């Protein structure tokens, strides 16, 4: 598990990552509640956006490895590509789970109205995995860290707006409502609504199931072995 430990250390090494991983999530806890919409405090509604950013930040460590030729050197060691990838992703997943726990638990302590904190945590974890997988698939297209990150920023903006996290999905025109379903963020927004109003646990499982399906799809696509 050397790669795993190393991935953990590297993720926490630079200042930007530390800020993203600690300060921002903690700031999320203290954001106020909305008047009418969103139904849960702003910080929790927008936490999904943060998860997307953190996903790409963490995944681009793999891209950095490719840029510097680390992956090429690993190719001649007895470490399989699967080991390299799985241990890296495990490290990132653990970081994201911890972060989600801190946010949810901190919210409970602070006294925010979170309705069903346990399900909320589960939803965040599912979405974190999906976000990580999407970021992994995204970086498998690029060769340069900066370019991939810049384009991903605009991509995040699009997905967040069309997916119904920033704007309630109900005010969309019909066609856009249908198209929104394609984006994983739509399912996060649905999940948040369920946490507030939901009763039938099957609906919630469906929402998480879809997020998991997205995770699997993008993991398969992102697992292509690229040495350069």
């Amino acid at each position, binding site marked *: 598990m050397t790669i795993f430990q190393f991935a953990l250390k590297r993720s926490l090494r630079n200042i930007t990552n530390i800020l993203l991983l600690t300060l921002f999530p903690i700031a999320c806890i203290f954001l106020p509640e909305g008047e009418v919409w969103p139904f849960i405090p702003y910080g929790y509604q927008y936490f999904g956006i943060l998860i997307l950013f953190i996903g790409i930040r963490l995944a681009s460590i793999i891209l950095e490895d490719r840029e510097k030729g680390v992956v090429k050197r690993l190719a001649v060691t007895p470490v399989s590509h699967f080991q390299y990838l799985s241990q890296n992703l495990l490290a990132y997943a653990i970081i994201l789970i911890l972060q989600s726990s801190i946010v949810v638990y901190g919210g409970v302590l602070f006294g925010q109205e979170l309705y069903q904190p346990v399900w909320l945590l589960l939803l965040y974890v599912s979405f974190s995995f999906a976000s990580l997988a999407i970021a992994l698939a995204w970086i498998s297209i690029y060769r340069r860290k900066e370019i991939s990150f810049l384009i991903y920023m605009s991509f995040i903006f699009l997905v967040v707006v069309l997916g119904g996290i920033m704007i309630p999905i109900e005010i969309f025109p019909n066609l856009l409502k*249908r198209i929104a*379903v*394609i984006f994983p963020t739509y399912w996060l927004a649905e999940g948040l609504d369920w946490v507030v109003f939901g009763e039938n646990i099957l609906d919630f499982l*469906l929402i998480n199931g*879809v997020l998991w*399906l997205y995770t*699997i*799809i993008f993991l*398969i696509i992102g*697992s292509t072995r690229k040495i350069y």
Partner: protein
Amino acid sequence: MKVFKEPMLYVNIWRFLNIAVLIHLWIILETTINSFILILLLLIMTSLRWRFPLPIWSVLVDAIMCLLFFPSTVIGYYGLALPIFELSLKKKGLFSLLFFAGVFFPSSPSNLLFWYYLQAFFFGTFSSITLENQEIYKLEADEQRRDRYELERIKNNLLEANQSVYQQAEIMERYRISRELHDHLGHDLTGASLALQAYEWIEDPKEAQKLIQEVRNRLERSTKSLRDTVHNMTPITLIGAEILENIVQNYQLVDIDFHKTGNMLLVSAHKWGLLEVCLKETLTNVSRHSNATKVKVDLQVTESIVRLSIQDNGIVKETSHTGSGLRGLRIRARSMGGSLSISQKDGFLVVCVIPIDKERLNT
């Protein structure tokens, strides 16, 4: 961009386009959210196929997924195009005809479905043929390349053998000459010189007379044997520049003027071989393809190179390719470290230059 010429790329694009079609259908057909799950499941199968070579039975998984969603959504019917495509891609197109049964279900959406299946079947078959052809071409190209390398290797080996045979022959010949001189001339000349030395010390005139006679006999004998040896060694066949001259004299079609300068003995036998073939080939070309009336042949031997240039005054149509004869000569010239160049500016000009290696001559 070699990647755009790979048939496999288009197969994968088609797979993902199909998913895009299903999503489009899902958006316009106002079906339930649940049926979106089917699209995601099919997308998983598709990306798995893109990533790994799945066994053929994996299409059953897609088919079962689609079947399960038959009652709830028409997307299931359209999804069957994927297994149809995969089956025909793997040359199992007949099995895919079973899925065409989806058209006859009472709840099946429209007549368009049949055509949708048919294009999947058609493109799958087409892709499978393309991929198969690509494999065949690759194998053929590899085989051709292997054969060509083999031929080149054999050719180089032959040329090397040619040179070494020449060297061996030269050494054997020298050995024969030295033995010949040593066996016959050597004894007599040594005897004669010893007899002359003895002559200075002898007092008795009779004895001296006898010795002188002895010396004379020995010298006569050695002169005769020298003459014989030299005579035996002189080849009757033509060598060196004479070969070229002989060819030029026997060539009757056009006027040839032949010049030679330099010391012809510097050029070794196998180089003459090449020069001879070169001259013959060029003159043959002149008589076959050219309307020339005059040919100028110029042979120059300097300390370090031998240069043979053959120039005619014919009007040539510019041809870009060299014939196999000249190409073979070029390879032979290169194997000796020389070169053969051809120019078609005014008339046809062939210049063959071969370096002379001086070390060889002294071995």
